[in-house]
Every structure is written in C-alpha cells, then in structure tokens.
C-alpha cells in the first residue's frame, strides 16, 4: 500500500451489541477537506473518536503517515499532529477563553512542575510565547475581544469557535471537527467556511462532520456518506447531491428555492388573544458583564414567536431568565398573569412552562425511557400512568429511533438522538408554553426540517404556545406568527414574521440565499496567522 496521509482501514465499532460503525474505509490526502455526513446515529462521531484516539477501534486499523495509530497513547495524538473539536463541547468552563486555547499548546510545550512553580526563566519565556500564539488564533477565529471572559459565560456558537482555536493552536496536520457550525447563523457559518479554506491553505487537512449542507457543498473536496454504520457513498459534492441513496437516507428531496410562506392566515385571522407571557425590561448579567440591557417581549396564547439574532446576542440568556434558570438583575416576567421573576425553575415547570435548553441537559445516566418519564413526572399524580404511557408511544412515533434505543443510557446517544430526546421530554410535560432553544441543532437536514413541522403541528393540535430560538431563521420564520430580533442584548426590531422576513437588513444578515458559495480564500491574512 502506498503510504497515504490518513488511511482508515476497515474499522468497526460495537456498543452493547449495536454495530455503530461497520467496516468503514476511506482516506484523506494532505491539505484536503473531507466531509463525513449521514443521518443522526450513523456513526460519524464514533469514526472521529476512533481517529482521534478517544476510543480504539474494535477491528481494523487507522494508518497516519504510514504508521498505525493504535501504537499511540491517547495523549500522544496531539503531538503527532492530530487535533479535534467535540460535538457536545468539551470546554474548560472555569478558565478564561485565552487559557482554554493555551491548554491546546500542551503537547507543543515543555515546562514541568518545578520550573512552573518557581517561574523559571524558560517557563516564563514559554508562557509568553503560548500567550502570543493563543491570541493569534483567537484573532483568527474572531474571539480576541472575549479572551478574558470565562468560557462558561460564552454563547454556544462562540465556544464552537473557541474549540477550533484550541485545536488549531497546536498546528495540527489533521483537524477533526464534529459539527463546527452547529448553533451558528447564516452569516456566521459563511465566516466559518472562509476560515476553513484558510486553514486548508495553511496545509492542514480537515475531516469534518456537519449537517449544514450548504457549508459542506461549498467547501468539501470530497464527501463520505455513512448510514447505519456503513459507508454508502463517496464522491464530490455534485456526485453526492445526485446520488439517490444519499437523497433518500439523508438530504431529502430538494424543493428548488422554496417560496417563503409565513403562516399569514393564522396571524391575521387570530382575534386578539390573551397574553400568556410578558417580559418587561429584563436586565441580566454574568458576573460583571451585562448581557441583556432591558428586554421587552410578549407572547400571546397559541402563537409561535421566534427569537432571532447572532451568537452572543443574548437569546439563550433571555430564555434562561424566563424559565428561572438564570436570575435576572432586574425586570419582570409574567406567565399567565402571574409574576414568576423570583420563582425557581423547578416550580415553574408545573405551572405549564417547559424549556429545551441548547445544551440538552438530558440525564446521561438514565435510560431513554426513564428520561421521558421524568419529563412527565410532575403530572404523574394527576394523569393516570396509562395516559402517560400512551403519550410516550406518541412521542416514539415522532422519533422512532428513541423507541429502538429506549433502554440505552441517555449520555451514550448520538448528538442528534440526544436532541430528539430533549424535545420529547419537554413535550411530555404537556406545557402551555414551550421554550425551544435551537431545536434543530445537530439534527440531520431531513429531521431538522421535520422538527419545525412538528413544532407547528404541536401548536395546531394541542394549542401549545411556542417561543423559539433557531439559527435557521428562514425555516423558523416560515412557521412563526411573530418574531423578535435581538442584537447585543437589545431588541433590534420586532414584528410579524412576514415583516421581519422582508426586512432588507434581516435578509442580508440572517437569511442569505438558499445556496451559497464561498469567496476565494484570503491568503494574505492566513499568512499573518502562520507567522
């Protein structure tokens, strides 16, 4: 065999009798961008975990620069030039952003315990150079101004960018990315695509898992498709887009440039209904940093209202303030004409509000089914358990994979499966108001489209009111009655979904065109980073 840069040779992985990855082979050339796509639970993250040394393959071998990777210990991969990011974020929340990135340099630095403790000359010199390199990469990903913030206070999408800086600072030859664009809006995704092109021109090969098809199609040199652990296709973006197997399993039929339809009827026909949620002048901060500067918002019964805005605009914080997870500094939240500003989160749930947080927060040591029962726990006394069993069956109809995996531990589900579980659990609490923080995050395109359909169906059938945060603004507006646009902690504008959709500023910033192509990479600025 001619020594390829990365040669994955018939790797296989089992989890408790389920074959997660089945005899998969492929290769990556130096400086190539290869995408790994496929439905939720197809085994993409598992493949990345095997290449990055997080779990050893059950069978098969991975050759890196001609040598078998099984010879390396877990902590030797970084030094060998393989860096990665994680689907479910693995950030060091109590360190600053800069420190997080500096940890990425561990394998490239030497200072040991004693010289660190006495701050020897060499340790200080090394520390200074680590700081400089980390800063360069923070600038590269656009987070330099947040360098002194605690990572735990950053928005999801920013953390995704921070993980890229943390991986790149080690100057890897192979970068493994697990859903880097999850949680980013349209223009942020474009920025990230450009960034990957630059990384490519620096000579780093990228193997990425991603559900954002626009991004994949525009940057990937080659695409590999997995389904149920097996490789079902490999080729260029046009080959893959035309492949019937892939369309059936993953992409779905492309309706050419869907005309934007907002649910006009519902909004105009609806007589003025009573306000279910009213938020007045909410101010919130993390430590000393104020992130919401007086937000006003109201939601009427039976409405679907979208919250749009770029990463770090404060959408997640606002939802957390509403459901009692984050204590607002001032302002009031009224739910069903009752002031709940000071009520704690667990007391709010029985009032009829359910929250699906961005970071899912499922119970990782409980089975899927127990997670679902917990969602209904506060109703157990009232509703009969038969009723709840029936509802769980209904939920299984929405997401058949959950029924298949009902005895699997929540923490071992794939990213997308966890998302389905989190949404299902919230539905089982039969809320009158549902707060959804990026429901399509990490879901395959087919399912992602479906999930918003499901949201609409839930509203139509059960009358559930929905407050929705969603990066796919176009899709979110299509099912919404009204929308608010947040920008740096303030309401930039609000109005009917239609008004927002047709607003020129919004169109350029959040909606974009449906198919996008990336400009040629700016090699000059990439050089700066290399220096």
């Amino acid at each position: 065999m001619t020594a390829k840069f990365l040669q994955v040779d018939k790797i296989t992985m089992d989890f408790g009798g389920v074959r997660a990855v089945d005899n998969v082979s492929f290769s990556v050339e130096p400086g190539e961008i290869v995408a790994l796509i496929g439905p939720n639970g197809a085994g993409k993250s598992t493949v990345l975990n095997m290449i990055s040394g997080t779990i050893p393959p059950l069978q098969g071998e991975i050759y890196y620069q001609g040598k078998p990777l099984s010879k390396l210990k877990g902590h030797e991969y970084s030094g060998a030039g393989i860096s990665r990011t994680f689907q479910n974020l693995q950030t060091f929340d109590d360190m600053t952003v800069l420190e997080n990135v500096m940890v990425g340099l561990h394998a490239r630095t030497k200072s040991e315990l004693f010289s660190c403790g006495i701050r020897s000359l060499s340790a200080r010199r090394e520390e200074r150079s680590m700081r400089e390199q980390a800063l360069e990469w923070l600038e590269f990903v656009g987070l330099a101004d947040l360098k002194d913030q605690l990572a735990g206070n950053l928005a999801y999408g920013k953390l995704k960018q921070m993980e890229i800086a943390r991986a790149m600072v080690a100057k890897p030859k192979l970068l493994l990315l697990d859903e880097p664009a999850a949680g980013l809006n349209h223009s942020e995704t474009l920025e990230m695509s450009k960034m990957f092109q630059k990384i490519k021109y620096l000579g780093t090969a990228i193997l990425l898992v991603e559900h954002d098809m626009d991004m994949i199609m525009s940057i990937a040199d080659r695409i590999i498709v997995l389904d149920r652990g097996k490789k079902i296709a490999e080729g260029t973006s046009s080959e893959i887009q035309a492949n019937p197997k892939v369309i059936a399993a993953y992409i779905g039929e492309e309706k050419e440039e869907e005309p934007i339809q907002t649910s006009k009827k519902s909004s105009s026909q609806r007589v003025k209904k009573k306000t279910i949620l009213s938020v007045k002048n909410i101010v919130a901060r993390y430590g000393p940093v104020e992130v919401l500067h007086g937000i006003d918002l109201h939601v009427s019964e039976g409405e679907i209202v979208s919250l749009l805005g770029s990463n770090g605009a404060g959408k997640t914080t606002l939802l957390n303030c509403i459901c009692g997870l984050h204590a607002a500094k001032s302002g009031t939240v009224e739910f069903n004409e009752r002031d709940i500003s000071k009520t704690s989160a667990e007391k709010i749930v029985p009032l009829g509000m359910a929250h699906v947080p961005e970071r899912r927060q499922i119970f990782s040591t409980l089975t899927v089914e127990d997670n679902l029962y917990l969602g209904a726990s506060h109703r157990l006394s009232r509703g009969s358990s038969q009723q709840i069993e029936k509802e769980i069956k209904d939920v299984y109809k929405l997401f058949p994979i959950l029924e298949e995996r009902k005895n699997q531990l929540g923490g071992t589900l794939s990213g997308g499966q966890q998302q389905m579980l989190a949404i299902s659990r919230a539905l089982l609490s039969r809320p009158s108001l549902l707060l959804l923080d990026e429901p399509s995050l990490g879901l395959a395109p087919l399912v992602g489209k479906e999930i918003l359909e499901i949201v609409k169906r839930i509203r139509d059938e059960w009358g559930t009111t929905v407050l929705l945060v969603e990066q796919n603004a176009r899709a979110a507006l299509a099912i919404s009655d009204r929308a608010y646009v947040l920008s740096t902690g303030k309401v930039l504008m609000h109005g009917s979904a239609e008004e927002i959709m047709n607003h020129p500023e919004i169109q350029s910033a959040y909606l974009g065109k449906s198919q996008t192509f990336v400009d040629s990479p700016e090699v000059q600025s990439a050089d700066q980073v290399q220096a």
Partner: protein
Amino acid sequence: MKNIGKGIYVYLALVIFAPLLFQDDYYLSLLVITGIYAIVAIGLSIVMGLTGQISIGQAAFWGIGAYTSAVLTTKYEISPFLALIAAAIIPAVFAFILARAIAGLSGYYLAMATLAFGYIIQILISEWESVTGGATGMIGIPSIDFFGESELGMYYLVWGVVTVVLLFSLNLVESRVGRAFRAIHKSEIAATSMGIDVRKYRLLAFVVGGLFAGLSGGLYAHYVGTLDPQPFGFHESIVFITIVVIGGMTNIWGALVGTFVIEMIRAGLTSLSDTFPALSGDVDTIVYGAILVLIIMFMPEGLVPKIQSMVQSYKHRRSTATVVVQKNKERETAR
C-alpha cells in the same frame, strides 16, 4: 509577580508584622499552628480543588512527615533541617506509590481508597512500636533553632515555609502544569486530546500534596516536641477538607483563609470550654460538620471566590456609576 496580584503584598505585610500585634506567646502559638495547617491545606487544594481528586487521607502524609522527622532527629541525631527535607520527600514517595496504585480511580472510589490509606498509615504508626513508640508515642523531639529556639523564631520559620509553598502554588496555577491540572478536572477527554497525560498529572498533584503535607508534619513534630498517632487519622483529614471547602477549593488563597477561619473557631471553642465544659471533646467535629453543610448549601464556591466576585461586581457598578455621572455632566455642559 504580575500573575499573583497585589494581594501578596498585603499578605507579606501581615505575616511580617503580625508578631508585633500578638506578642503574647499564646497568640503566637495559634499563628504557628495555623501556618502548619495552612501548608497542608494548600497542598490539598492542588489535589482537590485544581485536579478534582478527593483525598480523605491527607493527615496520613502529615503523620508520615511528622514521624520521619521525629525518628531521624531523636534516634539518629540528624539535624532537624536535614530531617525536614526527609519529612517532605518520604511522604511524597508514599503519595507517588499510592497514586500509582489507585491510578484510574475517581469519585467515590478514589475517596474510599484514600480513606483506607489513611487508616492503614495510622494503624502502622500505632503498631510499629520499636520505631514510633506505638500508642504512647515519642517525646523529646528537639525543637528547631531558627535564630534562637523561641516561639518567634518558629513563627518566622513556619510562615517562611507557608510563603514559599504559597508562591510556588500560585505560580503553578497560572502555568502550563496548573492549566493541565484544571483541564483534567473539567474534562478528561478534552485534556487527553490536547496532549495531557491524565495519569501523570493526577499523580504529580498527589505527590505535591503529599510533599507539602509531609513538610508541614515535620514542622509540627519539632514544634510540639511530642507525638502520638491520634492526630494523624480520619478526624484531621476531614478538618483539612473542611478548610479547603470553606476557603474555596479552586483558589489557593482559599486554603489560607479557610485555615484561619477553622483555627479561630477551634481556639474559640477551646477557650469557651473552660467556662462551658460541655463544649470540650468532639464538639468541634459537629461545628465543622455544620459549617461544611452551610457552606455547601449557601456558598458552594467557598469564601474567597465569593468575595472576589462580590468585589468585581462592586467595582463594575462603581465604574458604570462614574460613566453615568460623567454622561450627566456632559449633558449639563452641553446645555
């Protein structure tokens, strides 16, 4: 120094001038004991707070250090300063062996293993009569001549050691190795993928903790002059944990502040028990337990981090207030 901040100057001034305020030997002896405990606590906050490994056996390393120094000076007439070095190294070796043996354990399992280790060492000390004097213990351990054999000399020696240990640890936190410790605490998977050898760094933390505890044990032996196995068991291990939790595990200063709080309570209880005999005995355990519960309920991050965040938001409020004032002024002048 810039990493450590201005706090260190306040600290140095306090350490240097405190004996002028407390010339009474009783208060000075309280401060010496506080220093001795602080050294162990700083080591434990590296093991527990930074790296996230629970150790319920820290008093054992303390005891090994104490007996090493005591035996070397009384039986072999080695100079106390050399004995102190051995008192640091031998517990560190024990810590190394223990950490090797329990590599891979975490959470409850680690807690149980260190608990068992603590018991084994205490039993060993009581049973190995020919060397340690068994349950009756050892007497006549020479005191240390540090600019004269005085309470004051001992004060400056102990607090000199505290200062070195403190600076070393503060430096460590903000360094490559300290970040590796903290990274392991948060996510072993991520730490490994950044090239951090998790086992190695967990072991290193243990060794540092053992070394500090042993050094402190040596000082303790020479300071009190007599030893018996009683203080080197479960009770004292829990006291160390309480100290670290109260002060704030993730902060090295927290270990120092926590020690002060606990020692003040201990001294208060002792003096109260003169008037109220009911307060003698194991009442301190109950008080520590209660404090531990209260801290975990109301201030889980501990004293020092809590105060830090309060100061920060106060500063922030003041700076925003000045901005507002300035803006108002500007508006007025504009008019």
